[in-house]
Protein backbone atom coordinates (compact mmCIF):
# COMPACT_ATOMS: atom_id res chain seq x y z
CA UNK A 1 0.00 0.00 0.00
CA UNK A 2 1.05 3.50 -0.65
CA UNK A 3 1.70 5.59 2.41
CA UNK A 4 -0.62 8.56 2.49
CA UNK A 5 2.19 11.02 2.21
CA UNK A 6 3.53 9.56 -0.97
CA UNK A 7 4.40 12.10 -3.67
CA UNK A 8 3.27 15.33 -2.21
CA UNK A 9 3.76 15.84 1.47
CA UNK A 10 0.15 15.97 2.50
CA UNK A 11 -0.29 19.21 4.31
CA UNK A 12 -0.77 18.53 7.97
CA UNK A 13 -1.46 21.69 9.87
CA UNK A 14 -0.35 21.60 13.45
CA UNK A 15 -2.89 20.61 16.01
CA UNK A 16 -4.51 23.39 18.01
CA UNK A 17 -2.23 22.78 20.97
CA UNK A 18 0.77 22.98 18.74
CA UNK A 19 -0.08 26.48 17.71
CA UNK A 20 0.21 27.62 21.30
CA UNK A 21 -0.46 31.29 21.70
CA UNK A 22 -1.58 31.72 18.12
CA UNK A 23 -5.23 30.87 18.08
CA UNK A 24 -8.47 32.20 16.71
CA UNK A 25 -10.05 31.36 13.38
CA UNK A 26 -8.42 34.06 11.28
CA UNK A 27 -4.97 33.04 12.40
CA UNK A 28 -5.84 29.39 11.96
CA UNK A 29 -6.88 30.03 8.40
CA UNK A 30 -3.75 32.00 7.74
CA UNK A 31 -1.62 29.31 9.31
CA UNK A 32 -3.36 26.58 7.32
CA UNK A 33 -2.80 28.51 4.15
CA UNK A 34 0.84 29.03 4.97
CA UNK A 35 1.20 25.36 5.78
CA UNK A 36 -0.30 24.37 2.44
CA UNK A 37 1.87 26.90 0.67
CA UNK A 38 5.02 25.48 2.24
CA UNK A 39 4.03 21.97 1.20
CA UNK A 40 3.21 23.21 -2.27
CA UNK A 41 6.49 25.01 -2.73
CA UNK A 42 8.41 21.98 -1.46
CA UNK A 43 6.88 19.54 -3.89
CA UNK A 44 6.70 22.26 -6.54
CA UNK A 45 10.49 22.61 -6.36
CA UNK A 46 10.81 18.95 -7.34
CA UNK A 47 8.32 19.40 -10.17
CA UNK A 48 10.34 22.42 -11.25
CA UNK A 49 13.51 20.35 -11.45
CA UNK A 50 11.69 17.65 -13.40
CA UNK A 51 10.14 20.28 -15.68
CA UNK A 52 13.56 21.81 -16.26
CA UNK A 53 14.79 18.35 -17.23
CA UNK A 54 12.00 18.08 -19.80
CA UNK A 55 12.84 21.54 -21.15
CA UNK A 56 16.57 20.87 -21.50
CA UNK A 57 16.08 17.61 -23.38
CA UNK A 58 13.26 19.01 -25.49
CA UNK A 59 15.43 21.95 -26.52
CA UNK A 60 18.40 19.85 -27.47
CA UNK A 61 16.54 17.13 -29.32
CA UNK A 62 12.80 17.96 -29.58
CA UNK A 63 12.25 14.74 -27.65
CA UNK A 64 9.79 14.77 -24.78
CA UNK A 65 11.52 12.42 -22.39
CA UNK A 66 8.95 10.52 -20.37
CA UNK A 67 11.74 8.72 -18.57
CA UNK A 68 12.47 11.95 -16.69
CA UNK A 69 10.56 10.67 -13.65
CA UNK A 70 12.70 7.54 -13.62
CA UNK A 71 15.82 9.68 -13.22
CA UNK A 72 14.20 11.08 -10.08
CA UNK A 73 13.40 7.57 -8.95
CA UNK A 74 16.98 6.40 -9.53
CA UNK A 75 18.24 9.32 -7.44
CA UNK A 76 15.81 8.62 -4.62
CA UNK A 77 16.33 4.86 -4.59
CA UNK A 78 20.12 5.11 -4.78
CA UNK A 79 20.25 7.61 -1.94
CA UNK A 80 17.97 5.58 0.33
CA UNK A 81 19.40 2.11 -0.35
CA UNK A 82 23.04 3.18 -0.37
CA UNK A 83 22.79 5.11 2.89
CA UNK A 84 21.00 2.10 4.40
CA UNK A 85 24.02 0.06 3.32
CA UNK A 86 26.30 2.46 5.20
CA UNK A 87 27.43 4.75 2.40
CA UNK A 88 27.72 8.40 3.51
CA UNK A 89 24.83 10.51 2.24
CA UNK A 90 26.75 12.89 -0.10
CA UNK A 91 28.45 9.93 -1.70
CA UNK A 92 25.13 8.12 -2.07
CA UNK A 93 23.61 11.16 -3.79
CA UNK A 94 26.58 11.46 -6.12
CA UNK A 95 26.38 7.76 -6.94
CA UNK A 96 22.66 8.11 -7.69
CA UNK A 97 23.46 11.05 -9.92
CA UNK A 98 26.11 9.07 -11.75
CA UNK A 99 23.79 6.09 -12.28
CA UNK A 100 21.00 8.33 -13.56
CA UNK A 101 23.37 10.20 -15.88
CA UNK A 102 24.68 6.93 -17.24
CA UNK A 103 21.10 5.79 -17.80
CA UNK A 104 20.33 9.06 -19.55
CA UNK A 105 23.35 8.89 -21.82
CA UNK A 106 22.68 5.25 -22.69
CA UNK A 107 19.06 6.10 -23.48
CA UNK A 108 20.15 8.96 -25.71
CA UNK A 109 22.90 7.01 -27.42
CA UNK A 110 21.26 3.67 -27.99
CA UNK A 111 17.60 4.54 -28.32
CA UNK A 112 17.15 8.19 -29.30
CA UNK A 113 20.18 8.61 -31.54
CA UNK A 114 19.54 5.37 -33.39
CA UNK A 115 16.04 6.57 -34.20
CA UNK A 116 16.92 10.16 -35.01
CA UNK A 117 15.01 10.13 -38.28
CA UNK A 118 11.89 8.77 -36.61
CA UNK A 119 8.84 10.91 -35.97
CA UNK A 120 8.38 12.78 -32.71
CA UNK A 121 5.64 10.38 -31.65
CA UNK A 122 7.95 7.41 -32.16
CA UNK A 123 10.63 9.08 -30.07
CA UNK A 124 8.13 9.76 -27.29
CA UNK A 125 7.06 6.14 -27.33
CA UNK A 126 10.72 5.13 -27.09
CA UNK A 127 11.09 7.22 -23.94
CA UNK A 128 7.92 5.72 -22.47
CA UNK A 129 9.39 2.30 -23.19
CA UNK A 130 12.62 3.35 -21.54
CA UNK A 131 10.75 4.54 -18.47
CA UNK A 132 8.95 1.20 -18.13
CA UNK A 133 12.24 -0.61 -18.59
CA UNK A 134 14.02 1.49 -15.96
CA UNK A 135 11.11 0.98 -13.53
CA UNK A 136 11.26 -2.77 -14.07
CA UNK A 137 15.00 -2.80 -13.64
CA UNK A 138 14.68 -0.82 -10.41
CA UNK A 139 12.14 -3.33 -9.14
CA UNK A 140 14.56 -6.15 -9.81
CA UNK A 141 17.48 -4.37 -8.16
CA UNK A 142 15.74 -2.66 -5.25
CA UNK A 143 12.44 -4.49 -4.88
CA UNK A 144 8.91 -3.14 -4.80
CA UNK A 145 8.80 -1.81 -1.26
CA UNK A 146 9.22 1.75 -0.10
CA UNK A 147 12.61 2.87 1.17
CA UNK A 148 13.29 5.45 3.81
CA UNK A 149 15.96 8.05 4.03
CA UNK A 150 16.69 10.01 7.18
CA UNK A 151 16.10 13.74 6.95
CA UNK A 152 19.34 15.59 6.29
CA UNK A 153 19.12 17.75 9.39
CA UNK A 154 16.59 16.23 11.72
CA UNK A 155 12.80 16.27 11.90
CA UNK A 156 12.18 19.07 14.35
CA UNK A 157 9.79 21.40 12.55
CA UNK A 158 10.58 25.08 12.39
CA UNK A 159 7.55 27.09 13.44
CA UNK A 160 6.80 30.10 11.29
CA UNK A 161 3.60 32.10 11.83
CA UNK A 162 1.81 28.98 12.97
CA UNK A 163 2.98 26.78 10.13
CA UNK A 164 5.43 23.97 10.71
CA UNK A 165 8.23 23.78 8.19
CA UNK A 166 10.20 20.57 8.03
CA UNK A 167 13.93 21.18 7.80
CA UNK A 168 13.91 18.82 4.85
CA UNK A 169 11.56 21.19 3.01
CA UNK A 170 14.23 23.84 3.29
CA UNK A 171 16.74 21.36 1.91
CA UNK A 172 14.49 20.57 -1.03
CA UNK A 173 13.79 24.20 -1.86
CA UNK A 174 17.37 25.27 -1.24
CA UNK A 175 18.93 22.54 -3.34
CA UNK A 176 16.42 23.12 -6.14
CA UNK A 177 17.13 26.85 -6.05
CA UNK A 178 20.88 26.31 -6.25
CA UNK A 179 20.50 23.86 -9.15
CA UNK A 180 18.20 26.22 -11.02
CA UNK A 181 20.65 29.10 -10.58
CA UNK A 182 23.54 26.93 -11.74
CA UNK A 183 21.56 25.87 -14.81
CA UNK A 184 20.62 29.48 -15.48
CA UNK A 185 24.26 30.51 -15.25
CA UNK A 186 25.28 27.66 -17.53
CA UNK A 187 22.87 28.64 -20.28
CA UNK A 188 23.37 32.40 -20.16
CA UNK A 189 27.03 32.80 -19.25
CA UNK A 190 29.04 29.88 -20.64
CA UNK A 191 29.90 29.11 -24.24
CA UNK A 192 28.96 25.45 -23.79
CA UNK A 193 25.54 26.47 -22.50
CA UNK A 194 25.03 28.92 -25.34
CA UNK A 195 26.04 26.24 -27.81
CA UNK A 196 23.31 24.02 -26.36
CA UNK A 197 20.78 26.82 -26.66
CA UNK A 198 22.01 27.57 -30.17
CA UNK A 199 21.43 23.94 -31.11
CA UNK A 200 17.85 24.24 -29.99
CA UNK A 201 17.30 27.46 -31.91
CA UNK A 202 18.90 26.30 -35.13
CA UNK A 203 20.38 22.86 -35.38
CA UNK A 204 21.81 23.34 -38.88
CA UNK A 205 23.51 26.59 -37.96
CA UNK A 206 24.93 24.99 -34.82
CA UNK A 207 26.45 22.25 -36.94
CA UNK A 208 27.86 24.84 -39.31
CA UNK A 209 29.67 26.72 -36.53
CA UNK A 210 31.17 23.44 -35.40
CA UNK A 211 28.93 22.34 -32.55
CA UNK A 212 28.84 18.58 -32.22
CA UNK A 213 25.08 18.32 -31.98
CA UNK A 214 25.11 14.64 -31.08
CA UNK A 215 27.22 15.45 -28.07
CA UNK A 216 24.79 18.22 -27.17
CA UNK A 217 21.95 15.72 -27.06
CA UNK A 218 23.97 13.38 -24.84
CA UNK A 219 24.90 16.28 -22.57
CA UNK A 220 21.26 17.33 -22.33
CA UNK A 221 20.21 13.84 -21.23
CA UNK A 222 23.05 13.69 -18.71
CA UNK A 223 22.21 17.12 -17.31
CA UNK A 224 18.50 16.37 -17.02
CA UNK A 225 19.23 13.03 -15.40
CA UNK A 226 21.50 14.68 -12.84
CA UNK A 227 18.87 17.31 -12.02
CA UNK A 228 16.25 14.63 -11.59
CA UNK A 229 18.45 12.38 -9.47
CA UNK A 230 19.43 15.12 -7.03
CA UNK A 231 15.79 16.14 -6.78
CA UNK A 232 14.81 12.56 -6.06
CA UNK A 233 17.44 12.24 -3.34
CA UNK A 234 16.46 15.39 -1.46
CA UNK A 235 12.74 14.70 -1.59
CA UNK A 236 12.99 11.07 -0.45
CA UNK A 237 13.12 11.85 3.29
CA UNK A 238 9.66 13.45 2.87
CA UNK A 239 8.01 11.11 0.38
CA UNK A 240 9.98 7.84 0.71
CA UNK A 241 11.28 6.27 -2.46
CA UNK A 242 10.00 3.39 -4.49
CA UNK A 243 10.51 2.06 -7.97
CA UNK A 244 7.14 3.56 -8.90
CA UNK A 245 7.77 7.06 -7.59
CA UNK A 246 8.87 8.36 -10.98
CA UNK A 247 5.54 7.95 -12.74
CA UNK A 248 3.65 10.75 -11.06
CA UNK A 249 6.69 12.97 -10.53
CA UNK A 250 7.53 12.66 -14.21
CA UNK A 251 4.01 13.45 -15.36
CA UNK A 252 3.84 16.44 -13.06
CA UNK A 253 7.21 17.65 -14.27
CA UNK A 254 5.80 17.36 -17.78
CA UNK A 255 2.77 19.39 -16.70
CA UNK A 256 5.13 22.01 -15.29
CA UNK A 257 7.07 22.13 -18.55
CA UNK A 258 3.92 22.44 -20.68
CA UNK A 259 2.41 25.04 -18.36
CA UNK A 260 5.58 27.12 -18.56
CA UNK A 261 5.83 26.76 -22.33
CA UNK A 262 7.65 23.68 -23.57
CA UNK A 263 11.33 24.35 -23.92
CA UNK A 264 11.34 27.39 -21.66
CA UNK A 265 13.50 26.72 -18.60
CA UNK A 266 12.23 29.58 -16.48
CA UNK A 267 8.69 28.68 -17.51
CA UNK A 268 9.22 25.12 -16.32
CA UNK A 269 10.38 26.36 -12.92
CA UNK A 270 7.41 28.69 -12.52
CA UNK A 271 5.11 25.96 -13.85
CA UNK A 272 6.47 23.50 -11.30
CA UNK A 273 5.78 25.84 -8.43
CA UNK A 274 2.27 26.59 -9.69
CA UNK A 275 1.45 22.89 -10.05
CA UNK A 276 2.89 22.12 -6.61
CA UNK A 277 1.03 24.93 -4.87
CA UNK A 278 -2.25 24.24 -6.69
CA UNK A 279 -1.96 20.62 -5.68
CA UNK A 280 -1.26 21.36 -2.03
CA UNK A 281 -4.06 23.92 -1.80
CA UNK A 282 -6.62 21.61 -3.34
CA UNK A 283 -5.46 18.77 -1.12
CA UNK A 284 -5.81 21.01 1.90
CA UNK A 285 -9.09 22.76 1.12
CA UNK A 286 -10.90 20.18 -0.99
CA UNK A 287 -9.66 16.66 -0.53
CA UNK A 288 -6.31 14.99 -0.89
CA UNK A 289 -8.11 12.44 -3.06
CA UNK A 290 -8.12 14.99 -5.88
CA UNK A 291 -4.49 15.96 -5.43
CA UNK A 292 -3.15 14.11 -8.44
CA UNK A 293 -6.03 15.27 -10.61
CA UNK A 294 -4.99 18.89 -10.24
CA UNK A 295 -1.97 18.55 -12.50
CA UNK A 296 -4.04 16.94 -15.19
CA UNK A 297 -6.76 19.55 -15.00
CA UNK A 298 -4.02 22.15 -15.40
CA UNK A 299 -2.57 20.39 -18.41
CA UNK A 300 -5.99 20.21 -20.07
CA UNK A 301 -6.66 23.88 -19.41
CA UNK A 302 -3.26 24.85 -20.79
CA UNK A 303 -3.68 22.77 -23.92
CA UNK A 304 -7.15 24.17 -24.59
CA UNK A 305 -6.66 27.82 -23.68
CA UNK A 306 -2.98 28.60 -24.11
CA UNK A 307 -1.15 25.86 -25.94
CA UNK A 308 2.07 27.90 -25.89
CA UNK A 309 2.07 27.94 -22.11
CA UNK A 310 2.77 30.90 -19.85
CA UNK A 311 6.10 31.81 -21.39
CA UNK A 312 5.62 30.30 -24.84
CA UNK A 313 7.99 31.27 -27.61
CA UNK A 314 7.84 34.95 -28.34
CA UNK A 315 7.73 36.10 -31.93
CA UNK A 316 11.08 37.86 -32.15
CA UNK A 317 12.05 36.12 -35.37
CA UNK A 318 12.09 38.27 -38.47
CA UNK A 319 12.17 36.51 -41.81
Amino acid at each position, binding site marked *: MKPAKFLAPSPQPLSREGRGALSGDAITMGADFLQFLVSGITVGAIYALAGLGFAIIYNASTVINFAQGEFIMIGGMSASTLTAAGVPLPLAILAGCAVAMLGGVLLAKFAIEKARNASVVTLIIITIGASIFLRGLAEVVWGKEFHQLASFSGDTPILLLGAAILPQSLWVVGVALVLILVIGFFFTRT*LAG*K*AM*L*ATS*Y*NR*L*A*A*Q*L*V*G*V*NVRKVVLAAFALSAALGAVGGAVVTPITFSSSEMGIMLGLKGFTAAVLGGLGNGLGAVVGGLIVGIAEALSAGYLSSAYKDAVAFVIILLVLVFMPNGLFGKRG*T*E*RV
Partner: protein
Amino acid sequence: MLLEISGINTHYGRIHALKSVDLVVNEGELVALVGANGAGKTTLLRTLSGVQNATSGTIKFEGVDITRMTPHQRVAEGILQVPEGRQLFGPLSVEDNLRLGAYRRGGKPNDDIERMYASFPILKQKRHQPAGTLSGGQQQMVAIARALMAHPRLLLLDEPSMGLAPLLVGEIFNAVQGLKQQGTTIFLVEQNAYAALAIADRGYVLETGEVTLHDTGEALLASDRVKQAYLGL
Protein backbone atom coordinates in the same frame (compact mmCIF):
# COMPACT_ATOMS: atom_id res chain seq x y z
CA MET B 1 44.65 23.07 -54.62
CA LEU B 2 42.79 23.94 -51.47
CA LEU B 3 39.58 22.11 -52.30
CA GLU B 4 39.26 19.29 -54.77
CA ILE B 5 35.89 17.71 -55.42
CA SER B 6 35.96 14.66 -57.66
CA GLY B 7 33.05 12.61 -58.89
CA ILE B 8 30.68 13.61 -56.09
CA ASN B 9 27.20 12.11 -56.22
CA THR B 10 24.53 13.04 -53.72
CA HIS B 11 21.05 11.63 -53.40
CA TYR B 12 17.98 12.76 -51.52
CA GLY B 13 16.11 9.51 -51.30
CA ARG B 14 15.61 8.59 -54.93
CA ILE B 15 16.42 12.04 -56.27
CA HIS B 16 19.87 12.22 -57.81
CA ALA B 17 20.78 15.77 -56.78
CA LEU B 18 24.47 15.91 -57.72
CA LYS B 19 25.76 13.92 -60.67
CA SER B 20 29.48 13.25 -60.64
CA VAL B 21 30.52 16.81 -59.88
CA ASP B 22 34.19 17.78 -60.31
CA LEU B 23 35.29 21.14 -59.00
CA VAL B 24 38.46 22.80 -57.76
CA VAL B 25 39.10 25.84 -55.61
CA ASN B 26 42.67 27.15 -55.30
CA GLU B 27 44.11 29.03 -52.37
CA GLY B 28 43.17 32.73 -52.48
CA GLU B 29 40.63 32.32 -55.27
CA LEU B 30 37.06 33.52 -55.44
CA VAL B 31 35.17 30.82 -57.29
CA ALA B 32 31.50 31.27 -58.19
CA LEU B 33 28.97 28.53 -58.75
CA VAL B 34 25.92 29.74 -60.63
CA GLY B 35 22.80 27.96 -61.72
CA ALA B 36 19.04 28.07 -61.60
CA ASN B 37 16.89 27.29 -58.61
CA GLY B 38 16.99 23.56 -57.92
CA ALA B 39 20.19 22.94 -59.87
CA GLY B 40 21.83 21.48 -56.77
CA LYS B 41 23.91 24.44 -55.63
CA THR B 42 22.82 24.30 -52.02
CA THR B 43 23.12 20.52 -52.04
CA LEU B 44 26.75 20.86 -53.07
CA LEU B 45 27.43 23.22 -50.17
CA ARG B 46 25.59 20.92 -47.75
CA THR B 47 27.74 18.07 -49.00
CA LEU B 48 30.88 20.16 -48.57
CA SER B 49 29.94 21.02 -44.98
CA GLY B 50 29.00 17.43 -44.24
CA VAL B 51 25.39 18.04 -43.25
CA GLN B 52 24.42 15.98 -46.30
CA ASN B 53 26.25 12.75 -47.08
CA ALA B 54 27.75 12.13 -50.49
CA THR B 55 26.78 8.77 -51.96
CA SER B 56 30.09 8.46 -53.80
CA GLY B 57 33.11 10.46 -54.84
CA THR B 58 35.73 12.25 -52.78
CA ILE B 59 36.25 15.69 -51.32
CA LYS B 60 39.81 16.64 -50.53
CA PHE B 61 40.74 19.66 -48.48
CA GLU B 62 44.43 20.57 -48.43
CA GLY B 63 45.08 17.10 -49.75
CA VAL B 64 43.22 15.40 -46.90
CA ASP B 65 40.17 13.28 -47.71
CA ILE B 66 37.30 14.83 -45.74
CA THR B 67 34.45 13.00 -47.46
CA ARG B 68 33.49 11.07 -44.31
CA MET B 69 34.22 13.76 -41.75
CA THR B 70 31.42 15.07 -39.52
CA PRO B 71 30.30 18.70 -39.91
CA HIS B 72 32.15 19.86 -36.78
CA GLN B 73 35.37 18.19 -37.88
CA ARG B 74 35.17 20.08 -41.16
CA VAL B 75 34.67 23.33 -39.28
CA ALA B 76 37.79 22.47 -37.31
CA GLU B 77 39.60 21.99 -40.64
CA GLY B 78 38.60 25.53 -41.57
CA ILE B 79 35.64 25.02 -43.89
CA LEU B 80 32.96 27.50 -42.85
CA GLN B 81 29.61 27.99 -44.47
CA VAL B 82 27.33 31.00 -44.47
CA PRO B 83 24.12 29.12 -45.19
CA GLU B 84 21.22 30.11 -47.36
CA GLY B 85 18.67 32.16 -45.47
CA ARG B 86 21.35 33.18 -42.96
CA GLN B 87 20.29 30.74 -40.24
CA LEU B 88 21.16 32.89 -37.27
CA PHE B 89 20.48 31.94 -33.70
CA GLY B 90 17.51 34.30 -33.70
CA PRO B 91 16.80 34.72 -29.98
CA LEU B 92 20.48 35.04 -29.07
CA SER B 93 22.17 38.43 -29.18
CA VAL B 94 24.29 39.53 -32.13
CA GLU B 95 27.37 39.24 -29.95
CA ASP B 96 26.48 35.71 -28.82
CA ASN B 97 26.05 34.72 -32.46
CA LEU B 98 29.56 35.99 -33.16
CA ARG B 99 30.95 34.30 -30.07
CA LEU B 100 29.47 30.99 -31.20
CA GLY B 101 31.17 31.51 -34.54
CA ALA B 102 34.46 30.96 -32.73
CA TYR B 103 33.07 27.92 -30.89
CA ARG B 104 35.38 25.34 -32.48
CA ARG B 105 38.42 27.57 -32.22
CA GLY B 106 38.13 28.15 -28.49
CA GLY B 107 40.06 30.80 -26.65
CA LYS B 108 39.00 34.40 -26.10
CA PRO B 109 37.41 35.76 -29.26
CA ASN B 110 37.09 39.36 -28.06
CA ASP B 111 39.68 40.81 -30.45
CA ASP B 112 37.97 39.15 -33.37
CA ILE B 113 34.60 40.46 -32.26
CA GLU B 114 36.04 43.99 -32.24
CA ARG B 115 37.44 43.38 -35.71
CA MET B 116 33.99 42.37 -36.95
CA TYR B 117 32.47 45.49 -35.40
CA ALA B 118 35.10 47.55 -37.23
CA SER B 119 34.10 45.94 -40.53
CA PHE B 120 30.36 46.09 -39.83
CA PRO B 121 29.84 49.10 -37.52
CA ILE B 122 26.06 48.69 -37.47
CA LEU B 123 26.50 45.37 -35.66
CA LYS B 124 28.26 47.10 -32.80
CA GLN B 125 25.21 49.28 -32.27
CA LYS B 126 22.98 46.22 -32.26
CA ARG B 127 25.32 43.94 -30.34
CA HIS B 128 22.88 43.20 -27.50
CA GLN B 129 19.79 42.86 -29.68
CA PRO B 130 18.41 39.42 -30.55
CA ALA B 131 19.86 38.62 -33.96
CA GLY B 132 16.43 37.65 -35.26
CA THR B 133 15.18 41.23 -34.91
CA LEU B 134 17.73 42.71 -37.32
CA SER B 135 16.92 43.62 -40.91
CA GLY B 136 17.75 41.17 -43.69
CA GLY B 137 20.94 42.96 -44.70
CA GLN B 138 22.14 43.22 -41.12
CA GLN B 139 21.37 39.55 -40.55
CA GLN B 140 23.48 38.70 -43.59
CA MET B 141 26.33 40.69 -42.06
CA VAL B 142 25.97 38.75 -38.80
CA ALA B 143 25.98 35.48 -40.72
CA ILE B 144 29.15 36.39 -42.59
CA ALA B 145 30.84 37.78 -39.48
CA ARG B 146 29.89 34.65 -37.54
CA ALA B 147 31.64 32.47 -40.11
CA LEU B 148 34.69 34.78 -40.18
CA MET B 149 35.01 34.43 -36.40
CA ALA B 150 36.26 30.90 -37.02
CA HIS B 151 39.18 32.13 -39.17
CA PRO B 152 38.03 30.13 -42.19
CA ARG B 153 40.53 28.65 -44.63
CA LEU B 154 37.65 28.34 -47.07
CA LEU B 155 34.47 30.37 -46.86
CA LEU B 156 31.35 28.93 -48.47
CA LEU B 157 28.71 31.53 -49.21
CA ASP B 158 25.22 30.35 -50.14
CA GLU B 159 23.09 32.97 -51.88
CA PRO B 160 24.25 35.93 -49.80
CA SER B 161 22.13 38.29 -51.91
CA MET B 162 18.90 36.35 -51.46
CA GLY B 163 15.98 38.47 -50.29
CA LEU B 164 17.96 41.69 -50.06
CA ALA B 165 17.18 45.07 -51.60
CA PRO B 166 19.31 45.86 -54.69
CA LEU B 167 21.32 48.49 -52.82
CA LEU B 168 22.21 45.96 -50.10
CA VAL B 169 23.09 43.33 -52.68
CA GLY B 170 25.80 45.67 -53.94
CA GLU B 171 27.02 46.23 -50.40
CA ILE B 172 27.22 42.50 -49.67
CA PHE B 173 29.11 41.80 -52.90
CA ASN B 174 31.53 44.62 -52.05
CA ALA B 175 32.08 43.00 -48.67
CA VAL B 176 32.74 39.64 -50.35
CA GLN B 177 35.25 41.26 -52.66
CA GLY B 178 36.90 42.91 -49.67
CA LEU B 179 37.26 39.52 -47.99
CA LYS B 180 38.93 38.11 -51.07
CA GLN B 181 41.36 41.00 -51.15
CA GLN B 182 42.27 40.23 -47.54
CA GLY B 183 43.25 36.76 -48.73
CA THR B 184 40.20 34.67 -47.82
CA THR B 185 39.46 31.85 -50.22
CA ILE B 186 35.79 32.01 -51.18
CA PHE B 187 33.39 29.65 -52.86
CA LEU B 188 30.34 31.69 -53.76
CA VAL B 189 27.04 30.12 -54.74
CA GLU B 190 24.58 32.46 -56.40
CA GLN B 191 21.48 32.69 -58.49
CA ASN B 192 22.47 36.26 -59.23
CA ALA B 193 24.89 35.07 -61.91
CA TYR B 194 25.94 38.48 -63.16
CA ALA B 195 27.01 39.89 -59.83
CA ALA B 196 28.73 36.67 -58.83
CA LEU B 197 30.68 36.12 -62.06
CA ALA B 198 31.68 39.78 -62.17
CA ILE B 199 33.73 39.43 -59.00
CA ALA B 200 34.80 35.79 -59.45
CA ASP B 201 38.20 34.58 -60.65
CA ARG B 202 36.61 31.46 -62.04
CA GLY B 203 33.09 30.20 -62.33
CA TYR B 204 31.16 26.96 -62.71
CA VAL B 205 27.66 26.55 -64.11
CA LEU B 206 25.53 23.86 -62.51
CA GLU B 207 22.47 22.52 -64.32
CA THR B 208 20.25 19.79 -62.84
CA GLY B 209 23.09 18.47 -60.73
CA GLU B 210 25.78 18.54 -63.40
CA VAL B 211 28.61 20.98 -64.06
CA THR B 212 27.99 22.05 -67.64
CA LEU B 213 30.48 24.90 -68.01
CA HIS B 214 33.53 26.21 -66.26
CA ASP B 215 35.86 29.00 -67.14
CA THR B 216 37.11 32.33 -65.81
CA GLY B 217 34.42 34.66 -64.51
CA GLU B 218 34.95 37.04 -67.41
CA ALA B 219 34.72 34.35 -70.06
CA LEU B 220 31.53 32.98 -68.58
CA LEU B 221 29.99 36.45 -68.50
CA ALA B 222 30.79 36.77 -72.17
CA SER B 223 29.59 33.30 -73.16
CA ASP B 224 26.37 33.19 -75.14
CA ARG B 225 25.05 30.27 -73.24
CA VAL B 226 25.37 31.99 -69.86
CA LYS B 227 24.00 35.21 -71.27
CA GLN B 228 20.93 33.47 -72.59
CA ALA B 229 20.24 31.20 -69.68
CA TYR B 230 21.16 33.33 -66.68
CA LEU B 231 21.60 36.94 -67.59
CA GLY B 232 18.48 37.38 -69.68
CA LEU B 233 20.49 39.08 -72.41
